[in-house]
């Protein structure tokens, strides 16, 4: 059984903060196919279209029939543990700092033998096990073997925690506490065991529903934060930047019109000020501090969550300027992800469909409740995934977009404007 992690002691301010290092990052282009699956939380292997043979390690041609028609397909991961080892020596700094480290060799029921990290609850070979794909601290896909039945505190396993961003005992900043979604996120974080949640409020003189209830929770501290104001962001970072383990940027401005529906650029600018420039200001102020603490103890800094929109993938003309601002934010989030990669901070992009809030009143259901979106964010942190598309609409759009982005564009322009 995994022992639950303990609330870390207060940090000794005199000791040096451990510097972050990463597991080996190099992969061939083909192997990045596995990373694409793991980024969504799916374990995929290449399967030969001609003979059905499942392939591993990733390759250019079928090891059975030489066909080059290999497709990435989801795997159930069931298999037999053949052998295991505990490393007491490694040639790589990342592992050297974390020894001993367990590894296992598993024959998947689907055929191939895979080398994997071992969850601490996996016993000795031979035994039935379950293999899954995760992103490691370098953001690359790796395989990890779990027991068929995990214990209650399975998430607290040392090796698994290297691949996840569990809020337990961590300190989070939620950038906007005034919305129903922001409040749902705060509640979900606390339920997940977060130690401290700083909750941003802009224009604090304006009362917002539900904020008092949130503020009464002992873990919550309301802080002034206006993403349109660089000074406000910098001041808050100066105050709490060195303590924040995860940033959840849920602040957004949402107006419902396209180009012709409203003259002028004022409201489009206001959207950009928060949705795009707000993220930029926040990332400049909080990013470096987060990166510097990416290996700081068991509850080190770990993740950055961006609330984007499924409309970032393809413009929804009825909310055209909002879509554009989210597309801009998406692009900047990719930049942030690249810049955070060397530290091991996971940048999670959340692409929800329409949220059931005041700005989507005219959108027919299904709409995403703030609570289920908050739950999806917590799940993403715990699973260590990188891209999340919560809700039926987002999932449907994603499928259509992956299948044929041009077709989606035409369909949306016909129905949506």
């Amino acid at each position: 059984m995994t022992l639950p992690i303990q609330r870390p002691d207060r940090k000794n301010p005199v000791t040096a903060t451990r510097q972050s290092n990463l597991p080996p990052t190099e992969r061939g282009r083909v192997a990045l196919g596995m990373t694409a699956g793991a980024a969504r939380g799916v374990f995929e292997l290449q399967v030969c279209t001609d003979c059905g043979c499942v392939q591993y390690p990733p390759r250019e041609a079928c090891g059975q029939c030489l066909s080059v028609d290999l497709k990435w397909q989801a795997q159930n991961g069931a298999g037999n543990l053949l052998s295991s080892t505990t490393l007491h020596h490694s040639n790589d700094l990342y592992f050297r700092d974390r020894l001993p480290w367990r590894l296992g060799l598993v024959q998947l029921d689907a055929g191939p033998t895979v080398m994997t990290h071992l969850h601490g609850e996996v016993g000795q070979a031979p035994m039935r096990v379950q293999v899954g794909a995760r992103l490691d601290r370098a953001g690359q896909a790796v395989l990890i073997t779990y027991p068929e039945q995990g214990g209650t505190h399975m998430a607290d396993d040392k090796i698994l925690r290297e691949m996840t961003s569990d809020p337990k005992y961590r300190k989070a900043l939620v950038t906007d506490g005034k919305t129903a979604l922001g409040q749902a996120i705060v509640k979900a974080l606390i339920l997940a065991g977060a130690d401290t949640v700083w909750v941003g409020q802009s224009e604090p003189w304006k009362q917002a529903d539900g904020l008092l209830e949130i503020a009464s929770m002992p873990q919550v501290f309301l802080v002034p934060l206006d993403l349109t104001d660089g000074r406000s962001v910098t001041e808050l970072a100066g105050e709490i930047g060195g303590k924040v383990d995860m940033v959840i940027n849920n602040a957004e401005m949402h107006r419902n019109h396209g180009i012709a529906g409203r003259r002028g650029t004022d409201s489009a600018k206001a959207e950009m000020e928060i949705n795009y420039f707000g993220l930029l200001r926040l990332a400049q102020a909080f990013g470096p501090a987060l990166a510097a603490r990416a290996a700081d103890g068991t509850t080190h800094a770990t993740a950055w969550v961006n609330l984007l929109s499924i409309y970032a993938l393809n413009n929804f003309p009825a909310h055209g300027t909002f879509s554009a601002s989210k597309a801009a934010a998406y692009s900047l989030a990719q930049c942030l992800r690249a810049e955070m990669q060397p530290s091991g901070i996971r940048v999670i992009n959340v692409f929800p469909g329409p949220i059931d809030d005041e700005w989507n009143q005219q959108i027919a259901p299904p709409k995403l409740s703030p609570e289920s979106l908050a739950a999806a964010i917590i799940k993403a942190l715990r699973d260590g995934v990188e891209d999340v598309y919560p809700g039926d609409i987002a999932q449907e759009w994603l499928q259509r977009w992956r299948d044929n982005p041009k077709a989606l564009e035409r369909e949306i322009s016909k129905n949506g404007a």
Partner: protein
Amino acid sequence: MSRQRMSYDGVAVAVPVTVPYVRYSTRSAHWFVAQALQALIKTSGLSKDQIDGLCLSSFSLAPDTVVGVTQHLGLSPRWLDHMPTGGASGVMCLRRAARAIQAGDASVIACVAADTNHVDSFRQTLGSFSNFSRDATYPYGAGGPNSVFAFITDNYMRSFGARREDFGRIAVDQRTNALKNSNALFKKPLTMDEYMRARPVADPVHLFDCVMPCAGAEAFLVMGQERAQDLGLAHVVIRGTIERHNAFADDPVMYRGGWLVDRDDLYAQADATPGDIDFVQTYDDYPVIVMMQFEDLGFCAKGEGPAFVNSHSLTYDGSFPHNTSGGQLSSGQAGAAGGFIGMTEAIRQLTDSADKRGVSGAQLGLVSGYGMVAYDRCVCTGAVILGRSA
């Protein structure tokens, strides 16, 4: 119906050369190649120009291959080969060189394995050893071959009831042999107790199951027997040889190697049986692979490796002389030269030049090779039976 295989008659293997091993070197691999060639020339009495073929094995020449080496060292051979097969390269270089001699494509071929070892070069080699290791093993703990062979050892122990002590028999006796080899990097005796108490590296692999990477070179010459006689060079002959790659690919974890596929062919070529072999030089990257070679080359049945090593002494003067130079486990692993160390030692044994570790009356010796972890095991296997020249 495929054509009957030609014998290797008329080919001489001579002039075993070892460029002394050092733990680390600031020189490049070219320096070690040059040292090896110079020693081949000095010992054989040939001039540089008379060596008209070169077969080279190295990991640390990059960005050069054997091509860059010819210009670097001012060679103008009419036959050139590069054998990037590590632990199997000794057998494979010999096979190719022998055929080139028989065909008349070259008259004297230098087979050279050389590598340098900078302080950081082992780690760098590991991360880029193969596409599969970069994508599917190195990101898992970056243990290099230790983790791969830990799996193989763990599985073998469970499947056949082997204990650490059984592997210790191999390591301890090789150290005894190494003490008679002035080039071996390990100079102190190893007791079973010390073997057992060694620190774990990747369970069940412990310190003395692992080779020590170092810099150095091994080399030999291949030529027609008549030429060797004219030059007055002591030499050995090839009685039979095999190679096999990616054998038993469907075994989910390695417990047998390619030797098993072709061993009947090997002994048939030599018109010999395992009982006729006077000494064996296996590829000893890890003791478990030595045990598999004993089994797969017919010295005992599958799974009887542990009993076999306990009923034999494996020292140069024992009942089953094995890795008489100390092998890589006690001499060091000079990169690709680890694939040649058994070959040069076998030539020495069969030409009475093995110093104080000679196997008395040896007529036939077996050298086996095992090389190149692509993913979860080494892919290349080979073996050769060498005999005293008549």
